[in-house]
């Protein structure tokens, strides 16, 4: 069974952006009240801004509680991370990033200039608008029953 530290926690933007960062190397994250460790997350929202350069594609996803910055590295990193998507997958994912699309993203929690962001590993365009509603319900249930439960 996957340990909580490497499963993708389903979070609303406001909860993701409020994660407490611990000054370990590399930095680790948890919920302030429960200390539930979070390293990988899944978020779902509408792309409301994009910015690209040769090295990476940045975009914001808005789920109504906040805007989460997401970064997709366009070139293989050095040293390479085996968990990073293959270059052709990265190219396909980059083409899916368009303003107004409802997307589900998965990735590692990172920090850039003091701001929490998702370093993208996976991106899917959700064509069924009901998926967002279901994601909200999943997030509030998991937050209440697990992530933010004291003494979790």
């Amino acid at each position, binding site marked *: 069974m996957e340990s909580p530290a490497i499963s993708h926690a389903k979070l609303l933007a406001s909860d993701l952006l409020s994660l407490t960062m611990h000054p370990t190397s590399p930095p680790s994250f948890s919920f302030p009240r429960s200390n539930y460790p979070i390293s990988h997350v899944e978020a779902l929202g509408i792309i*409301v801004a994009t*910015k690209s350069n040769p090295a990476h594609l940045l975009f914001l996803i808005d789920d109504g509680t906040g805007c989460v910055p997401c970064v997709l590295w366009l070139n293989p990193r050095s040293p390479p991370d085996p968990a990073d998507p293959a270059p052709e997958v990265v190219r396909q994912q980059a083409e899916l990033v368009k303003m107004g699309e409802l997307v589900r993203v998965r990735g590692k929690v990172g920090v850039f200039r003091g701001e929490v962001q998702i370093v993208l590993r996976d991106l899917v365009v959700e064509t069924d608008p009901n998926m967002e509603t279901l994601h909200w319900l999943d997030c509030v249930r998991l937050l209440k029953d697990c992530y933010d439960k004291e003494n979790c």
Partner: protein
Amino acid sequence: MALCGIKPGIPVILRELEPSSAFFKHGQSLRVIGKLESFEIETGIVVISDGGFKLKIDMQHLRDFNFRTGSLYQFIGELKFGHDNDAMLEARIGRNVDGLDLNLYKQSLQIRRKIEANLLSRKRS
């Protein structure tokens, strides 16, 4: 990050957009849903409705937007007030959401708000 400064569109139901509401503020970033009732090509204004309540949407910032009367649309933008104090959403994002279970959406929104309010009061205590 250069994309900072963009506020999330707070989801609201059209009937909640009344003068006494906390959401009824100039510049407030909102996310609204409604059925497209009418559109004016000259002004770029569309009217959406939900449950008898209507809202005008200014589409001037949306490019290549295809719309169909009777379809369900979702817009994210900022609330603005015209000369006659008429509220209008200046949209920056628009998408067709035909197939959305609007009842489930509204109920889930209330659940989400309730949980968030509980968590906020716990954090403050």
